[in-house]
């Protein structure tokens, strides 16, 4: 347990973005192994590894891959979700900046195993710097014969890789909204299983489509190189391998840390240099969509899917935010609510209206106008959103609020009773005075 640099093994090698350096450090070995195997054996290798999707939901990758039909004549599309938008998360950014070839290799392996026609990397519009590294990697991979026609001499193995830049929308990280956006539409989600086939059967342009996160593809490349069984030796019973956590907030050394699954949460805080500016108050371990954990509960939590869930939170995307005792939880949740209100795509009522109500009530409380019963009202609205929304964004807007009320109920009550922060002067985030957050709602 603890820090385990697997994907990050060569992160700090100088010029590792260059294909020659990457190859010198074992790059494209996984792909070369893969093309000598049966396609189904490659999928089997991923299954053996126990890898689960690193984009947030943790869906078993091997099962997803085997959902792509084997014997049809439709085109197959391989999509990488590089829309990284979850507050607190910046692992895909570093993977693309430092190890773009690892991502490209992972996607080509998927292209081989699933008889892909073309691949698209959907990168959020703001990520210009990381995207340039990916652009360079793709161009180099074409030149080296890893992309294009008859790749590595395998007759009929043709695979093209394209970059598709987003234009500013968190919702486009949701996979069905991403498909809409890739097809040139507003970034709104599409009908899902059981009301529509899985994307692996009918995704973009009515063809079988695989969507995985950047980290998932990178892990797939490593797995083909080291072997699925070897990868599965890392981690816990049901959470295999390593996971990258983006540590931010009140720690001495905020950065991306790759740890073996099952590492105690407190160990990660230590690795990041410990808490600064005060004592530890709370941790959000998996991005803004997951429930906050009180300091007292942190020692119980291990960083794997099961342990997080048992402790009332989620591993999510690995956006690990640390807060010291200057942090006002209610104001933090108000800012969280503002995020979801802004990012709600407006397609369904529970989320579009609900996120606004959550924000308005939290704004009222933190402006000194809180009324008895406001907390119950919040819980009621959240229960009307959770499970009743068209896509996961609605649920993700409700969970952190419910989680914070569970963990820090007394702070909400304090705000309502005393009309000021329980933390006292100098709390963060500050109560906005001049800035009118609603201004950000005016369409650009």
């Amino acid at each position: 347990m603890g820090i385990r640099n697997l994907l990050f093994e060569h992160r700090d090698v100088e010029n590792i973005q260059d294909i020659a350096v990457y190859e010198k450090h074992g790059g494209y070995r996984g792909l070369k192994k893969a093309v000598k195997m049966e396609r189904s054996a490659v999928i089997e290798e991923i299954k053996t590894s126990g890898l689960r999707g690193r984009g947030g939901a943790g869906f078993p990758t091997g099962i997803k891959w085997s959902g792509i039909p084997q014997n049809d004549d439709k085109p197959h599309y391989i999509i990488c979700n590089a829309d990284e938008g979850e507050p607190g998360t910046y692992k895909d950014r570093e993977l693309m900046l430092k190890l773009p070839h690892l991502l490209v290799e992972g996607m080509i392996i998927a292209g081989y195993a699933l008889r892909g026609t073309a691949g698209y990397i959907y990168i959020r519009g703001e990520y210009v710097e990381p995207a340039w590294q990916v652009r360079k990697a793709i161009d180099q991979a074409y030149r080296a014969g890893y992309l294009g026609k008859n790749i590595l001499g395998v007759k009929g193995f043709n695979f093209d890789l394209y970059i598709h830049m987003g234009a500013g929308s968190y919702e486009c990280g949701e996979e069905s909204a991403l498909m809409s956006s890739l097809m040139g539409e507003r970034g709104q989600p599409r009908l899902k299983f059981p009301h529509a086939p899985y994307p692996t059967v009918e995704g973009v342009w009515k063809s079988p489509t695989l969507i995985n996160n950047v980290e998932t593809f990178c892990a797939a490349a490593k797995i083909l190189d080291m072997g699925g069984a070897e990868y599965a030796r890392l981690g816990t019973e049901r959470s295999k391998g390593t996971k990258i956590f983006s540590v931010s907030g009140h720690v001495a050394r905020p950065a991306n840390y790759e740890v073996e699954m099952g590492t105690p949460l407190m160990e990660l805080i230590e690795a990041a240099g410990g808490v600064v500016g005060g004592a530890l108050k709370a941790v959000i371990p998996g991005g803004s969509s997951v429930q906050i954990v009180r300091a007292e509960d942190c020692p119980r939590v291990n960083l794997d899917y099961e342990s997080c869930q048992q402790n009332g939170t989620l591993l999510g995307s690995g956006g690990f935010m640390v807060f010291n005792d200057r942090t006002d939880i209610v104001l933090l949740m108000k800012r969280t609510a503002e995020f979801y209100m802004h990012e709600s795509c407006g397609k369904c009522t529970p989320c579009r209206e609900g996120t606004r109500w959550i924000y308005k009530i939290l704004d009222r409380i933190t402006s000194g106008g809180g009324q008895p019963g406001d907390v119950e009202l919040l819980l009621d609205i959240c229960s009307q959103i959770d499970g009743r929304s068209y896509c996961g964004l609605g649920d993700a807007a409700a969970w952190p609020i419910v989680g914070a009320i569970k963990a820090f109920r007394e702070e909400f009550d304090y705000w309502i009773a005393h009309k000021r922060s329980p933390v006292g002067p100098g709390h963060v985030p500050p109560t906005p005075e001049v800035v009118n957050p609603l201004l950000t709602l005016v369409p650009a």
Partner: protein
Amino acid sequence: MATTENGPGALEPRPAPPKEQRFSLNAIQELEEIASHYPERKAACLPALWIAQREYGGYLTPAAIQEVADRLGMSYAEVEGVATFYTMYNLRPRGRHHLEVCTCLTCAVMGAYDVVHELERALGIEVGGTTRDGEFTLSEVECLDYCGAATVVQVGDRYFTHVTADNVLNLIEELRQSEEYTPVKLADAIVKLHLPGSSQTGGGSRTGEQIRNNELY
């Protein structure tokens, strides 16, 4: 129901946007290359809007939207729907430098609001405003996803990190001297990212097809 927002006449058909064709020959070639990446032409809508944002000087006028619609065989309404959905398409002119300060969770607890206040004071504008000389537009944005380097400010295609209320004025001075981070440059960078070979030629490539056939090298 009459909409109060747009006042009387909101229900009358809007005048057709002026027909204007500002895409340069190079831009048209870029668009055709990008459109060839997808099985359907419409999929090039987002990149086409990026091209338009560059060709029309950093923001999308109705004429720009119309030109994209014409070139992709889409309706004006469809393209407008896309253009208004995404926050990075500008529907109004922006300053030469668009300061987009992240005030999301981590940045908010690490002092992003102090940065915003300092900028408002120094530039004499509020969030959402543009300075009289057209140099700076100030916006608050949601998480830029580099939270470990809070506070993060995006200007054009570049992230400035570890910005504080104390050092933000240096950033302003640096930007005043610079032509590097304008909205047009940002749009251009994003267009180029779609083009095969652009990392090697440093510019647009009309050889995407050749690259895919392994002919270029």
